[in-house]
């Protein structure tokens, strides 16, 4: 299982986390509602993702991951 770099707890197994994926801006009327709720950019390359360290510090983290290599990046 891969290790997730938690800034509070250090590297921990991914099973301790919930990967929430791309940040989801709330529907604010600037985009069609369905797109705002369901659409994801799903970009290749470095992406920012939300992780919840459920079985650790319970912090919501924004981590950057290269979706092409699956490696966390600074």
């Amino acid at each position: 299982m891969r290790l997730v770099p938690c800034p509070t707890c250090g590297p921990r197994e991914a099973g301790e986390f919930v990967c929430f994926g791309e940040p989801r801006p709330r529907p604010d009327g600037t985009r069609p509602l369905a797109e705002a709720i369901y659409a994801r950019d799903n970009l290749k390359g470095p992406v920012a993702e939300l992780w919840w360290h459920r079985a650790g510090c319970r912090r919501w983290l924004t981590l950057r991951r290269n979706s092409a290599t699956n490696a966390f990046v600074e």
Partner: protein
Amino acid sequence: MSGYRLKPVEPDARVTVRFDGRDFEARRGESLAATLLAAGETTVARSFKYHRPRGIVAHGAHEPNALVQTKDGMALATQLDAREGLDARAVNCWPGPRFDLAGVLDRFGALLPAGFPYKTFMGPGGRAWPFFERVIRALAGLGTLPTQTRPLRIEKRHAHCELLIVGAGEAGRAAAAQARRPGLRTILADDGACPDFGHVTSLGHTTVLARHEGGLFLALERAPHPGLDARLWKIRAGAAVLATGAVERPLVFAGNDRPGVMLLSAILAYARRDFVAAGRRVLIACNNDEGYDGALALAEAGVGIVGIVDMRLGAGGPARARLERSGVPIHEGMAIGAARGVPVAGARLVRLDGTDATRDVACDAIAMAGGHTPLVHLHSHAGGPLAYAGDAAAFLPAGAHEGAWSAGAANGRGLAAAADGARAARLALGGPAEPEIPLSPAGGLLARWESPPAPGADKAFVDFGSDVTAADIRLAAREGYDGVELLKRYTATGMALDQGRTSNMNALDVLARARGLSPDRAGTTTFRPPFLPVPFAAFADPGGPLWKPSRVTPLTAWHETRGAKMYESGANWRRPGYYPRAGETLDAACARECAAVREAAGIYDSSPLGKFEVAGPDAGAFLDFVYATRLSDLKPGRGRYALQLHEDGRLFDDGIVFRLAPERFFVTTTTGNADACLQRFSYCRQVLRPDLRVVVASVTEQWADLVLCGPRARDVLAAAAIDPPRDLPFMGIAGIELAGRPALVARAGFTGEMSFEMFVPASSAPAIWDRLLSAGAAFGIAPVGSEANHVLRIEKGFISVGHEGDGIAGPDDLGLGFAVHADKPDFVGRAALMRDRADPAPRPQLVGLLARDPAFVLPEGAAVLRADAAVGRGFVTASCASGALGRSLALALIEDGRALIGRDVAVAIDGGIAGAHVVRPAFYDPQGARQRG
């Protein structure tokens, strides 16, 4: 009958093993393969597809042929240790490997080309495959599943280390010698025996199966101690040295699969390690200098050599002169055109210069030396890139990958293994950069493995395990299956026991030549874990209460000792379903418990309910944001039924939110969603609304929840000397002292009766539960389980998120619009809810159903049909037999259901249609007078 022992078995090491019903003398601990070789049992197996007789080719884990059956399952003869009582049989043959009736298939090889099942049985209109598949599988199957087998005992163990060294050969041992540093944890694992270095943890008889991202390795240790069959290690390593070695590459010539044709390295290993000679007259075929070095080593061990067939001219190094002096014939510029005899009795040699001169040599074993294929599997498993090294004619790791450094033969540096292993360890431990050690391919390697194919000659195999010939590869390439991945799937090359370790490179070579490509352009297939077959038991859930622990309430033990039928409910909780009396059925117990609640009093352990404290100056604003219901105007001491929506406007969860103090709320959620609510609350607090000053704490386990309900509930409380405020209103909450500790009492419940929920500290719960039961005995109190609760809530038309909240229904659909305060400027799901409200499209709506036959309980999940056609327009969400109403009841979500109230619908049931009448979803006390009291 060619093999023999170079040294007799010592009397104290002598054991008897059985193979195919015959006894053989063995040296304890040697492999069954060594025993069979020593006994001259050259033919030990039949091949997968053609049923050709096969012998042992390799040693250790890379054997492609010699799969045998034991009572515990199948194993390689090269990996079964000889011990008294070992009993193995050959597979895929009848009556035996030396004479197999199905061997006739070999004569019809021309009818079984690559992809023959597709071509023969699956063509346009072909319907024959299902029939022939059975016949073919019966003929081609390998072995049988043991019918009576003891469960394997395999434990799992986790380990952490700074350095993992895989392989205790020269490179691995040199790496281990570098790992001397105080506090450095090093693990050294090897397939076979593993030397003890003192400063490292040595895992012998341990195969590292897989390397995953993040430095996670899986390894299987065989028989760590008597009573344990294996141990699966999960090793998290900071860095690793992969010294996994290489496997010798066979040569491709007609009849290269005949029993007695082996890898030179295997013949050497059996001679040196087991003192077993594969034959008295060994012919060595090579394309590099190792043929000569190996011949000297074999001669030294006492094995007779009848000649060396070298594809090259004038090569052989210093060893050649010594061999020539001792009279060993060297056939240079030649290759084996065909092997003859079963077991092998000789070879016809052909010239490679195009002339058709041939030479016949008699022999009783043939050794193939085609260079080495580095075992780069672990490097590749986690995505390490490979590069083709032309000098070594092999794919090699393209540098270190994620802290894993390949070394020694696995890195193409077999002749400088110790230096390469030491270097890899220093680098893996963070040492300064060092120059690379030069590649050391087999001396003078000529990149040619296949002898010239001759028309009418016997088959020349590239994959023994899958029975794939060089001709099959060429045919596949002609037919367009000319990429490595396609080729693999079309011909099954590389898919057999050894996963292509002996075959992939030769298959690629034949393919590349057929396409006129260089081997690096042809590419290689992907290596995937595990490296070796692993018993399922190694990965399986070992079972037992510790594997997936259930959550227990403070009263679970009480329920169990009272004979309650316990259910696994949401979120792993074990809770009582019902409390049967002696001889009582589920239905009878459930009806009795329901009657107690409706007529006297019931008590329910609702402790698994999700509970949260939300506190802070902005707690009200926070809840207004998280819930669709307005909660900021709630008065202290009061509660309100509240809904959470998904951002898409559909129902997520419901529960009662109480305000304990101006800045302190007590929030209840459903049991099943308690964990999801924790995630959502913290997401809203940390990500969406970090501006709000609020804290959220889960207190589900801290507070037990005892629900007392029924018309005599007040009497029971009085008898138990529990005194909530006399004027506590419906949906009110008050703090009281219970058994000397603080508790909360709320007038809320899920049954529609006068109801008191007592939130008490978990450790106080058993005493208070007992107190209520003894006090209630005079009033006919009964403990009630979730079955009765289900009936009681259906009677009331209360929704259960797990049943009616199907992810599609919104609050309005469920008749819960009263709990939505859309005038709030913002809350999660508001935008989508407003869009739903503006959309005239029909929606599923919650209604009640009364089956035409009042004794018939509609099945939950049954489709509700339109009267005019067999088209589903909804489904039954919950259904029960109601004692209070004396008939069956159901709730259903039906498209535009409210418009159907007063009309009939059809419900699809097993074997037909049941009529039902649509009514408002409130059957019992619809005005709610009883619960308000």
